[in-house]
């Protein structure tokens, strides 16, 4: 089993594990952020470049450092590898540049966007980004498209992580949307405004790291930090029925999958649970979710026994 050292922490991992997953096994601060990699999906990753790390020692046999920064989500570890993430100034500088690149065409309409408060790009930019942009040209814009009755696609916000394409490709039967055009013109789309009509299509909302794919049943209804996320389950023959209901008083405003600390859902839930089960009677509430203290969703949120919840998501 190869031994890898990340930011001074050594761990033994299985053959073929990527650097990112090895870092996640150590856990804590040294885990590189990821915008496109999604552990529940195959062949995801390698697109956004936010998980770049510096390999200062290639392996025990060949101790030369890798000449460039590598994407940790798609680089397998080798025995004796030494990796710098938080400790490497080169990585932090590069990540700042990556954030600036990701934000080139991003409209920064967070006050309007429904994803604000739980947005990966927002968190990433807050932690690693510079406060200004050097981009002077006009940002590209798109018209909003309705994909089916419940999902809205706002391509202007998209960072082309391909997570939604992989999701629909892998967990639903027939794929109807993908990336059209190339390079700067690439856009997510269903060719000639086809709607995605599949029982699991709503999961593209959960996997989207930005606000490009949003829930139309929740559109502009509230802000995520005014709602109380509760773990809940229901009897569902299509999915596991384990979800999070976002409540305001006694009303369910929206339903999402249960996300772990890396923003990845545990189980993909079906569209019936997500869009059509806003009735409190259908759900069995288990209790409030654990929320990181520095998250904006944590405002006004109190936990009786946070330690139990930590174990649950950990």
């Amino acid at each position, binding site marked *: 089993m190869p031994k890898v050292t990340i930011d001074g922490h050594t761990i033994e991992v299985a053959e073929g594990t990527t650097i990112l997953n090895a870092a996640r096994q150590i856990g804590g601060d040294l885990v590189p952020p990821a915008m496109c990699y999604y552990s529940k999906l195959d062949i995801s990753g390698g697109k956004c470049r936010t998980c770049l790390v510096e390999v200062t020692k290639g392996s025990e046999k060949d101790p030369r450092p890798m000449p460039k920064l590598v994407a940790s989500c798609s680089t397998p570890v080798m025995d004796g590898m030494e990796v710098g993430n938080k400790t490497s100034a080169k990585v932090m500088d590069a990540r700042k540049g990556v954030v600036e690149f990701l934000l080139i065409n991003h409209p920064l*309409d*967070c006050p*309007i966007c429904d994803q604000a408060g739980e947005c990966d790009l927002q968190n990433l930019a807050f932690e690693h980004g510079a406060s200004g942009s050097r981009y002077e040209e006009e940002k590209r814009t798109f018209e909003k498209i309705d994909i089916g009755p419940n999902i809205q696609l706002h391509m202007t916000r998209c960072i082309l992580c391909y997570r939604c394409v992989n999701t629909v490709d892998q967990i639903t039967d027939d794929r109807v949307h993908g990336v059209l055009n190339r390079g700067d013109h690439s856009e997510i789309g269903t060719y000639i405004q086809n709607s995605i009509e599949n029982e699991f299509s709503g999961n593209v909302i959960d996997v989207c790291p930005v606000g490009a794919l949003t829930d139309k049943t929740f559109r*502009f209804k509230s802000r995520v930090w005014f709602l109380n996320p509760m773990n809940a389950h229901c009897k569902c023959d299509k999915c596991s029925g384990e979800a999070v209901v976002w409540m305001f008083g006694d009303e369910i405003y929206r339903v999402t999958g249960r996300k772990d600390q890396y923003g990845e859902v545990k189980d993909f839930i079906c569209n019936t649970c997500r869009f059509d089960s806003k009735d409190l009677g259908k759900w069995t509430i288990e209790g409030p979710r654990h929320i990181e203290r520095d998250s904006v969703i944590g*405002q006004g949120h109190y936990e009786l026994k946070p330690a139990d919840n930590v174990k649950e998501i950990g």
Partner: protein
Amino acid sequence: MKSLTNRSIEVSNKKMTLMERIYLPAVIGGLFITLKHLFMKGATIKYPEQTRPVSNVYRGKHVLKRDDKGAERCTACGLCAVACPAEAITMTSAERQKGEEGLYREEKYATVYEINMLRCIFCGLCESACPKEAIFLTTEILPANFEREDFIYGKDRLVEQIDKRIDVSKRQTMEVVTQKFND
């Protein structure tokens, strides 16, 4: 025992003199002080006819600004409500329809925007939190009222009137803005 702080005063029960016992000189002295105050300049002013000068950044009644074209700037993002320590602000948002571009600047707007002025502590955090420069506090002092309901200010009293613009440029001088960003 003597006190350690040396601040206590011993009570004396010494016998009063004759002049002190008839009290009259002390009473007349007191009346004279009252009379003297009649001819002094008063400490109060006759509000509301007279008002005191206030600072340019005085925190009084709120205003929801419109932009140069007269469209409402507020996009109902809820950051003022989350910043509000007194939980005074509530709002409901809606999507802008086609043809309403002149009314609302962004694609989302507030259909209901209420500030409970009885809860408000006029701290100005909503003004600092606003990413759209929509809400400002003005130098206007909030009027008194009879009913509790009348202190819940809706959009009818908060949004500035299109022909009666409220100047907030003095709240946005370089000094104020840099201080805001440094906070």
